[in-house]
């Protein structure tokens, strides 16, 4: 339980090579670490820091900003109920009560069977669909307390296995981009000329300034 495995380290180097700056690979590597252990371990963050050349504090600071990353073990299903402004106004508290009651754990807790972890989340960028929640980052919009109870029942019964894979699964198939198939991103520091402006008017050959 620790650093990235040799296989994943190889994969990490492949991911880093896709970007002009190693630091840009930080988020994909955090996903990789989470996929490996189910959550991002302290040792994995140190390893990532070494791989991309930043301090572990920067890795942790970046990772903890995102709801997607867990830094402690979680259950098979992670339910994130948004508690920020729009959702709070539209009844997020009711959703949370329903979930707590159904699962028998408080926000932040994991059920004894290891099936569910319940979190109160910061804004999930779906304010127009408030109140919203996520299960393993799959959205449920304009949810009601009944929706929550049904969702939990369905998950327990395995009726949603097709849609919602266990926590930590980023995608069911892994995309490999060989180095020679990349689009050849240019290091922003090496960009010499002015930005290429998109010309709106097809008749004007000069770009807008």
């Amino acid at each position, binding site marked *: 339980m620790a650093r990235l495995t040799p296989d994943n380290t190889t994969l990490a180097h492949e991911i880093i090579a896709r970007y002009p700056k190693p630091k840009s690979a930080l988020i994909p590597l955090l996903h990789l670490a989470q996929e490996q252990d189910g959550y991002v371990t302290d040792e994995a963050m140190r390893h990532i820091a070494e791989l991309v050349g930043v*301090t572990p504090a920067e*890795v942790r*600071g970046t990772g*903890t900003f*995102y709801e997607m990353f867990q830094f402690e073990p979680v259950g098979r299903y992670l339910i994130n109920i948004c508690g920020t402004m729009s959702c709070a106004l539209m009844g997020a508290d009711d959703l949370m009560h329903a979930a707590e009651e159904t699962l028998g754990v408080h926000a932040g807790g994991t059920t004894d069977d290891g099936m569910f972890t319940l979190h109160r989340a*910061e804004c999930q960028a779906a304010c127009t669909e408030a109140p919203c929640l996520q299960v393993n980052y799959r959205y449920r919009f304009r949810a009601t307390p009944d929706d929550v109870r049904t969702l939990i029942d369905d998950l327990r019964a395995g009726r949603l296995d097709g849609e919602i894979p266990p926590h930590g699964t980023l995608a069911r198939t892994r995309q490999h981009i060989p180095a020679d198939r990349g689009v050849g991103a240019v290091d922003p520091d090496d960009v010499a000329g002015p930005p290429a402006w998109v010309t709106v008017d097809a008749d004007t050959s000069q770009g807008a300034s």
Partner: protein
Amino acid sequence: MSPNDDAVNEPTDATDDAGSSGDKAVMVDDAVADADTVDSEPVVEPDPDAVTITINGREVSARRGELVISAAERNDAYIPRFCYHPRMSSVGMCRQCLVEIDTGRGPMLQPSCMVPVSDGMVVDTESDTSKRAQEGILELLLANHPLDCPVCDKGGECPLQDQAFSHGPGESRYVEEKRHYEKPIPISDLVFLDRERCILCDRCTRFADEVAGDALIHFMDRGNATQVNTYPDEPFSSYFSGNTVQICPVGALTASPYRFKARPWDLEQVESTCTTCSVGCRTSVHSSRDRVLRFQGLDVSDDHGEAVNHGWLCDRGRFNFESIHADTRLGEPLVRTDAGLTATTWSSAMSITADLLGSALAAGSDSVGIIGGARGTNEDALAWARLADACGVGRRDAQVGDGIPAEILDLPRASVDDACAAATIVLIGPDLKQELPVLHLRLRAAVESGRTKVIEFTPTGSGLTAGAWRSQQYVPGALVETVRQSLSDSDVAAQLAAGPVVVVAGRPNLAEQGPAVLDAVEAVVAAAPQATVLPVLRRGNVIGALEAGLAPVSGDTDAILRAAADGQIKVLVLLGADPLRDHPDAQLARRALAGAERVISIDGHMSSSSRAADVVLPAAVMGEKSGTTTNIEGRTTPVEQKVTVHGTARPDWMIALELAQRLGHDLGVSDLNDLTAAVPHAARHRSDRVPAASAMPPSNYELRLIVSRTLYDAAVLTAASPSLAELAAGPGLSVHPADLEALGVSSGDDIRVVGPRGSVVMPACADDRLRRGTVWAAFNQVDPRGVHGDIREVIDASAVANDVRLEVVS
């Protein structure tokens, strides 16, 4: 506390919001313009970068690129702010500087720290909308702030407190429970963090990342849970951590040496200069009840040019004020009797000293040697130089065998600004981060900006290695050859021809002779004839002391110590020097102090050498005396007395004047003002230049020794500051992992280091940044338990370089 409306215009916190010279774009222009356009051209050409903007109904002139917040401040329209700092990039984090700005599309609230001025812009900092916005932001910032001002160290000099009075709504509508955190938590040995007080302005984290390059603190978590923190078990052990305390606009960051020591309104302050190293950072010395309680960095320009330190200080310079009031301070003269060192009166101590000097001088002026003088002011050094001149004493040296020949000062001098504006910096010297930390910050900023390329020659790598254009790791003993070889590279030649070149020259390795550095520098100057030199000799006022006349006339410190060891010295004067602890060749220093007939130590603290002296005269230390000091650029700045001297200690110059009188010499000066007026600027240096010995080929079965300083060591002032004394790492030898493996020793095990002078035992540590065949040890590290020895025990200062053998300790 009563409302203090003036506070915003006169920030009590020195660098905090002093807004010294506007924003960055302006400062860069100034720095370039400063060079040599002092009083030329009476015809003022219209400034192509000038723009006219309207602030609060008044038309004022600003410069393109300048930020609205600084243009407004220059024009007496102070805009409240927390995150904005003139020496760091703007981030628009706190939103406190919202004002109405009209750029032709109607007035809109915009953060004035993020908006550069433009021609015709109309700014209203006092409109109802601006005021309501600022009040609203303050109410939000205070929503979670604990308002524990009465027990907060920052209370009384707190930008949040001051601006809540001047720009706040007066009361809050929040009744909800505030955010709670454990308070305070230590984030390093020196700094405490109170996350409840934090307003998340990003100043400390920005400083750590942008300025110091030690991103060890970072925002963690998100939204309401956002907090500044370190990685678990990875403290904020930056050499510059104290700066975050100074720039924190609330009481979230506090430094352990000052916590609960005073209230700001009880502090008296005076502007002075730090003399811990030779960078000459400007400081403000704060005291209460005749005790110095803290130093703050100042961001002030002077006649000589732009600010040296941009307001920053290193932690060693910031916190070694504790040494002023240390137990090891000397308060009365001591004379050796049968009962050891015994306290006596100044008159009897001075008469004994004068008699000793008089009879030694009668035997020939070469029977007196003076080592030191770099710890004092220019006035101290000048008085002693004049005394030495009057007595004909040529054996004098302000460096203690750890520098390079004083002729380095004869080369065309560069300023720090020159170095930062140069196309190329050639660094032949120590790791500046360890020895002259604030110079490291300045050069690092130049490198990060992409303006300047660094070519460094170092035996170990340095804090600038990561950003260096070329980093040449040389084998000690082969510096000159390595530099010559590198200069013949066509890329390097092209780079040197590409623009101004500044050579930053100091002593890279204390187990290797100094004169080689001078040869290497001359080789660079020969290849780039316009190059100027920034001499990075480390000791506090070493440049001032050398220029005042304490440069060797006949024999440097090594020669004086050798003469003393041979019994040729009757009186050895140690002017704030501690060769027993501070000379690279510990055995030579011991033999010298034993071989000198009499040793007179003039020092502020009881040091190893003063303990071995026959007469000890207590000296006033920085903070207790006034005068001037000269930094590496040749910039002379004042140091000021803030507290009464300890006991009956006297400044060095006073001791020299009295000795001169007793010896029947007239030094032509009678008081401090005479001395200050007589301080010379840029004297010429010469010495019997010994050509640097030829290279020493590496040996096949021994390892080449590299010894250099780290910021925290057993130096007197550091050891006498309780907060810093614990930070020294202790003895240890870094070895390349492959060399270590060949020996069958694992990292952390003890090994015996056998060198030219003897052997010591210390723990080995694997370090793959070293070249194979070289080993590194930090200078002047002491093991309080006495188990591990000091690397100085094995060094032969007269050798071109030192080789050591490692033996497994059974």
